[in-house]
């Protein structure tokens, strides 16, 4: 399974970045091979509105099966859903921990955004 996790750092031991749209980075992880690819997201840290939209487009282009993050706003959710990418919220701890939680079934795909759109 290919999972994208919003992350503060560049490795599996980095902490999950709780906010999808303004995450520092995205890690594309292939859970079968263990491959990790780091995708930078700093352009969206300062975007006024639409950070989530850009981030979602960046992530959708990686064609993951799902996105694992802390919180996801409505615009990002709309884009990811349109791209057929499942959104899983509530991820905590390290990237490694979060993926494990997902594989164990402790985290489930969300039916919608779990937070209001933010500017910050």
């Amino acid at each position, binding site marked *: 399974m290919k999972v994208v996790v919003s992350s503060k750092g560049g490795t599996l031991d980095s902490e999950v970045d709780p906010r999808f749209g303004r995450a520092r980075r995205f890690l594309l992880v292939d859970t079968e091979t263990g491959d990790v690819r780091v995708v930078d997201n700093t352009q969206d840290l300062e*975007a006024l*509105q*639409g950070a989530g*939209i*850009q981030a*979602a*487009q960046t992530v*959708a282009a990686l064609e993951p099966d799902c996105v694992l993050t802390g919180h996801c706003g409505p*615009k990002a959710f*709309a*884009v990811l859903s*349109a*791209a*057929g990418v499942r959104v899983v919220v509530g991820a905590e701890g390290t990237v490694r921990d979060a993926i494990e939680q997902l594989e164990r079934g402790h985290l489930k795909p969300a039916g919608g955004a779990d937070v209001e759109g933010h500017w910050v």
Partner: protein
Amino acid sequence: MGLDRNLSVAVASGKGGTGKTTISTCLALIAGRPVRLLDCDVEEPNCHLFLKPRIEHTESVGLLVPVVDEDRCTGCGECSRFCEYNAMAVVRDKVLVFSELCHGCGGCTLACPEGAISEVERPIGTLERGRSGDVEFVQGRLEVGEVLAPPVIAAVKRHAADGGLTIIDAPPGTSCPVIEAVRGAGFVVLVTEPTPFGLSDLRLAVEMVRVMGLRTGVVINRSDIGDDGVRVYCAEEGIPVLAEIPNDRRVAEAYSRGHLPTEDVPGYRARMDALLAAIEESAG
């Protein structure tokens, strides 16, 4: 003095709360000839509280936002690539429009190679027109939660009088909404107070007016509460001080009740007459 001359006077400030609305509304009321008052502080319009106009006409102010014809759309992504405001996303050949981010530039309709994009109006505010005595009144009001004040201000400005006197109540500050309000004015009155905040914000407002190539003069309100900084600055910069109005608790109390000091405070009317004369003289 030229009572029939065409003149648009914008009343602005850097700092909020210096007395713009009081002064702009008083000037309109004492002008003694047909005058149009435009309330361009569309985020917090207050002139109506004092003018108490009879509103005769209300209309919605809208922004043109894109609508995509899905039958024609090929999902090429040109619209999304073009948009500077992230208002369009293309995923899996589907276009998602985030119209609340749209600035209404119309570029996506031009960028689309299939002609699949048309526009609809999205309401962002209202425009009201009315009158009070000899004063024609136009007010814009931005819908709470909307971000773009300038299009609503531009809508108000389109109703400036064809001739005669127009007075514009501008918002506080020096950025986009104020620029839109004062642009093209024949004269800008900057209302300030003689304090460090007043001076700091006045400097910014003067720079703005200069960058825009507009004529300006200063009114020092509550002129006896602070220091000489503003006076010294104006003298150094060659900016005319059109009036100095001393602090008067009666003015503040009248204002708090929605009364203009020209009604309640003796001598204030004469000050406004003198100010209007000074403006007309400085406007050249």
